[in-house]
């Protein structure tokens, strides 16, 4: 990264030519709104009246000193993000490896396996509400049959387990993302590498460990990074399925932000919570970035 040459010659790199359209889009439609959104944090802001009063750091103090829902939402968010990410990634990778090996009927099955990614997220929520409801859906009876529940009940109204409802829905939705990205990465590995490894008498597992994994590692890292960010910010399924309830047990930071902004109409404070979330995600992003930089690039 820190190429001393580029520091000495701050001339116009041809890279900017390739980047120009991206920069145009991002700055106009993302960066400008983003800066506006962040600036709310320092104001007591009324969206409807269009008035704002400078509030300095008062709202940050409130967040750190007296907000118990914030702490609860933070803990819930960590659970929601890590559980969703773990299952999405491991199942998605498994499926990608299967598909990469190829089997009969793959051309028909492959598009079907990608279906969940194309369903709008609020529909996913409604669909799984229907599945979890003992009056309309089969899942409570399946849970009862395999001994997870004593009587067929709705998991979404049980404060100790309610979070698993949206997590299952989210895993269903997110597996194809990892599958498609990792499959594309696997397909990009030239087959002759495996042939060479085969001739050297390397076992399948060793080939996976020492050839496949390093070659798809950049894709793994970037998908893990971006997906974690998205899941942490992803409120729609939870809003549809539980609305943060029962008794805040499925409240995560992004649903809390939504409520604060549009139910309490307190955009200033919502922005403060958003900045806290942004900070946490930046720490995570920085950590992943460090790992990425330590890896050799395959050129």
């Amino acid at each position, binding site marked *: 990264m820190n190429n001393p040459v580029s520091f000495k010659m701050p001339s116009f790199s041809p890279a900017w030519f390739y980047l120009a359209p991206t920069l145009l889009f991002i700055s106009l439609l993302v960066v400008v709104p983003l800066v506006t959104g962040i600036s709310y944090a320092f104001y007591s802001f009324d*969206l*409807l*009246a269009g008035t704002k009063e400078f509030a300095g750091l008062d709202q940050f103090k409130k967040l750190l000193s007296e907000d118990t829902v914030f702490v609860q939402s933070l803990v819930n968010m960590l659970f929601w993000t890590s559980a969703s990410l773990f299952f999405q990634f491991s199942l998605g990778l498994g499926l990608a490896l299967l598909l990469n090996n190829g089997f009969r009927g793959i051309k028909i099955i492959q598009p079907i396996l990608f279906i969940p990614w194309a369903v709008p997220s609020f529909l996913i929520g409604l669909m799984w509400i229907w599945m979890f409801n003992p*009056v309309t859906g089969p899942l409570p009876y399946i849970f009862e049959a395999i001994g997870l529940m004593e009587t067929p009940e709705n998991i979404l*109204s049980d404060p100790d387990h309610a979070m698993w409802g949206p997590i299952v829905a989210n895993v269903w939705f997110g597996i194809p993302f990892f599958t498609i990205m990792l499959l594309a990465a696997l397909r990009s590995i030239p087959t002759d590498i495996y042939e060479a490894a085969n001739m050297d008498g390397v076992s399948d597992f060793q080939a996976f460990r020492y050839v496949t994994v390093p070659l798809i590692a950049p894709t793994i890292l970037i998908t893990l990074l971006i997906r974690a960010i998205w899941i942490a910010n992803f409120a729609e399924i939870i809003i549809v399925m539980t*609305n943060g*309830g029962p008794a805040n047990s499925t409240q995560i930071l992004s649903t809390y932000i939504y409520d604060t902004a549009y139910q*309490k*109409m307190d955009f200033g404070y919502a922005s403060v919570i958003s900045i806290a979330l942004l900070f946490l995600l930046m720490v995570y992003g920085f950590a992943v970035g460090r790992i990425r930089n330590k890896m050799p690039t395959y050129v």
Partner: protein
Amino acid sequence: MIKGAVAFIVMVFGFAVWQATSGKADDPNNLLIVEVNTSAERTGLLRDQLDDFEAANPGLTVDVISLSWGQAFEKLSMMVAGGQIPDVIEMPDFWLSRYADAGQIADLGPYIEKANFDDDLEGDTFKYGSINEKLYTIPYGYYLRALIYNKRIFKEAGIEKPPLTIEEFYQTAKTVSELNGVSGFCHHGGRGGPVFYYWLMTTMNGSDQFFDEDGNSTFYNEGAIKGLTLIRDLYQNGYAPQDSLNWNFNDTVSGFYSGTCAMLHQTPDSLPALRKRMDEDDFASAPMPLGPSGKSFPHLGYIGWSIFEKSSNKEAAWKLVQHLLNRQNNQTWAERGGLVPIYTGISQDIFAANNASQGWLKTTQDDRWSYLINPNYLPEIAEFDSITVVQSAQAMLLGDKTPEETAKMWADFLTEAQTRWLKKNKGVDQ
């Protein structure tokens, strides 16, 4: 390939620029009305009434934007903040103080002075729509609560008539729950449901006031706490479905017509949804049960028409509001939407004709029932109703908080909001 790509990008940009520069002129004779409690049938009815208006007022045209109920508030606030301001807006009671405080909606007081409404207009119509003596909205109908019950299930459980008192209500829920797979009460534990607690607490208190003379909330009174204890026991003993803890509007309605639960605390506009899926003979309605004082205070909500302060043609907008509220249109509107109309004469006609509506007829005619109106003037009321009460009542039903702690928390919230409001608007310093 690369040339083609560049050409494609340039093309899309060119189209965007062309669209951006072909501006739309703002025509003051074109009114924009926004509806928020949207359904396909109602949008059709509204359009019919607007067509009549256009025919009667040559030169004026009206466009409709239909927002879906779930996201209406977010979307409208964004339109307003973005400077895209409609002329007429459908205004639910709990939004009123937000828009009034922000100075976005016009005082209709000067207009009604010049206007004529029929004599049997519900006496409090203008009072309901006013904050601080300014009329911000004129209700087009009332969302009054009554108790809908499943006659078939009642028969099976050996219950002959709907509960008349809160005591009987509890017993009925208990008896029904002894049947296999049925619960007594369709509790509405999610958003929109808290008005049930307000009814229960005030009715147990024997007064329809949210605040006493000193501005302290009545929710921490003994009756109110008893009321909360009753609903907690009802839920914890299994007389309401376990997942009703987190039910929304449409879950309570579908719980009722699926026969999961037998009593529903609802407004008359849920009746069309019930008729579509149940036999007319299988359900009926009764007034909300009476409290220890022999009185009951069923909740009354309303949605009205308001005019934006920045409307480019307020005179025409007022004409439109008047048109939508005239006797004939209000009757169709109330009949088709299942509302209590604003003209009392019509109200009797509608409800008497209909078997399932007996509960509402009785509520509107018998002195033992009077209406409970939320303190809609408080800017915090939306937050209180949709977040604070929902989450903390769920905690109470689950046993994490006692009814007393919960009542205290709500009372403190309301008292604080009331104090702030009095200080700002009436110059009361406590």
